[in-house]
């Protein structure tokens, strides 16, 4: 497809928009504008084919149908994006990523069907890559979605023959790709797509508990690379640049995230296959703990000078962030120094907790990152752990073999008093018991966080 020069220049400009978008998205002040620039680039790029004669045809065919399809997709996308709760953001990203991967695979299949016989070996290899990896991304994202939405167990799913089936599908995909390069038949492409789906499912199934969001990020990078390969097949710079940007930055981001959890990506993906260690307990223990009512905790907070809040996923689920913000305001007014300690993987995705607290209008300055505040815990009078668990679990330091072993944690155990707000003795996402719950200076305040938090707020106000 040779496009006229002005089209090529517009596409280059759209590629630049994507660069500026990523650049913007990596700074808090510029993030929103960055996203808008990216959207502008994307919209312009998509509008272009309606205004020139692509690939020898005198005009774009099926324009009404295409516009209708875009309208349907847009409506669905906007609806989903508007309705989703902030706690469900990871699932949403996974789903959007999956459909993108699926679309890339379909585009590659079509291109194979239409022009495959004219292709050289290199474009054919890129086509095979796009079909397989796009399907992997699609199927993997769907499973990820199911796990996070609790449509299926979030624990690792492993069965005896899994590594064999996985390896077999992988090899079959490689062999078929080579076949496709030699003879560009559509059926080979279709089989490749099906194999990709199998590989995608098998890739994500054994990934357990705490690690699913890393997989989302990885699949996101995969989709980026498939789009880049698709751009090569279609000779389209904007697809190539946009896809490559996402592929490269996504891969890097995945490494950053895995790093924040103290894990390697290989370990996350294949750890469960080697058996064992990601399979934590999961049932509630009945060892004795110290529990208290909101009034007792209120008194404790009232006399504390230095308070650190550790918010976690449960805070978000309970939608207790607004009452928490209010509680913090009251306590600060009374002279206590209160900060939020944000663990990088608190919540279900890195940076997720910041989004949730930002939603509740917590001032940015009160949010302290882990490295910044970890030294302060030993001076804290009270640490209030609201719906968090794994991110303060000392097993990460003390129990080799625990699924979170090696992950840096917040040193809540060093504080004078620790108060947990949770509903039960059930463990967190990683499925392992938290020794800190049984320590003598730990107090539990049972109940749904939203409910206990407002009781606590009233009790503090009453003092």
């Amino acid at each position, binding site marked *: 497809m040779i496009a006229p020069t002005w089209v090529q220049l517009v596409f280059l400009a*759209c590629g630049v928009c994507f660069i500026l*978008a990523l*650049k913007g998205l990596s*700074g*808090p002040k510029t*993030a929103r504008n960055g*996203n808008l620039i*990216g*959207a502008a680039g*994307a919209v312009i790029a998509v509008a*272009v084919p309606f205004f020139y004669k*692509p690939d020898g045809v005198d005009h774009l065919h099926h324009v009404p*149908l295409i516009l209708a*399809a875009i309208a349907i*997709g*847009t409506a*669905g*996308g*906007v609806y989903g*994006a508007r309705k989703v709760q*902030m706690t469900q953001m990871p699932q949403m*990203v996974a789903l*959007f*990523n999956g459909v*993108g991967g699926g*679309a*890339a695979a*379909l*585009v590659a299949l*079509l*291109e194979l069907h*239409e022009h495959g016989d004219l292709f050289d070996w*290199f474009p054919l290899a890129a086509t095979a890559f796009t079909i397989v990896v796009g399907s992997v991304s699609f199927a993997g994202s769907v499973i990820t979605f199911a796990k996070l939405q609790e449509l299926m167990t979030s624990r690792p799913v492993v069965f005896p023959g899994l590594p064999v089936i996985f390896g077999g599908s992988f090899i079959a995909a490689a062999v078929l790709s080579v076949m496709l390069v030699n003879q560009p038949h559509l059926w080979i492409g279709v089989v490749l797509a099906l194999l990709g789906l199998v590989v995608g499912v098998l890739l994500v199934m054994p990934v357990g508990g705490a690690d699913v969001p890393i997989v989302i990020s990885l699949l996101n990078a995969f*989709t980026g690379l498939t*789009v*880049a390969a698709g751009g090569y097949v279609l000779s389209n710079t*904007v*697809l190539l640049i*946009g896809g490559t*940007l*996402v*592929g490269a*930055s996504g891969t890097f*981001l995945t490494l950053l*995230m895995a790093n924040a959890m103290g894990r390697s990506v290989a370990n996350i993906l294949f750890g469960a296959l080697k058996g064992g260690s990601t399979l934590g307990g999961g049932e509630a223990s009945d060892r004795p703990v110290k529990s208290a009512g909101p009034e007792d905790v209120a008194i404790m907070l009232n006399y504390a000078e230095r308070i650190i809040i550790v918010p976690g996923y449960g805070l978000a689920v309970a939608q207790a962030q*607004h009452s928490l*913000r*209010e509680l913090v*305001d009251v306590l*600060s*007014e009374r002279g206590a120094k209160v900060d939020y300690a944000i663990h*990088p993987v608190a919540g279900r*995705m*890195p940076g997720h907790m*910041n*989004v949730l607290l930002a939603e509740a*209008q917590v*001032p940015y300055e009160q*949010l302290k*990152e882990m490295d910044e505040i970890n030294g302060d815990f030993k001076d804290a009078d009270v640490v209030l752990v609201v719906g968090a668990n794994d991110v303060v679990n000392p097993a990460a330091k003390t129990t080799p073999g625990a699924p979170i072993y090696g992950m840096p944690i917040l040193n809540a155990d060093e504080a004078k008093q620790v108060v947990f707000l949770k509903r039960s003795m059930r463990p967190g996402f990683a499925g392992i018991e938290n020794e800190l719950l049984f320590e003598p200076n730990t107090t539990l305040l049972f109940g749904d966080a939203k409910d206990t938090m407002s009781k606590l707020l009233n009790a503090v106000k009453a003092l």
Partner: protein
Amino acid sequence: MSVSVVWLTFFVLSVFVGIEVISKVSSTLHTPLMSGANAIHGIILLGAVLVTGTTDNTFALIVGLIAIVLASVNMVGGFVVTDRMLQMFVRKKPKADAATQTPGDTK
């Protein structure tokens, strides 16, 4: 220069741009960044439109339209959801004293 080398050069340079441009991101922004990047690869919509609009085979047309729907969900939904997340970061203007704010807006 041969065409493949040209594309390889584009690819290599874009890899560096992609990595360098985000290498300063703070973990606060990981989620919106991932979501924004996710929206960007929705540009596969352009590919879907090009392929669908140049075919005359009914089967290909149907598959192409499905690809268009999927890709638009990715692209449009991705940008909208990212914007929704980022709105929250922007809303917080520096207040004189956080503790004296009115508690309002508790949903």
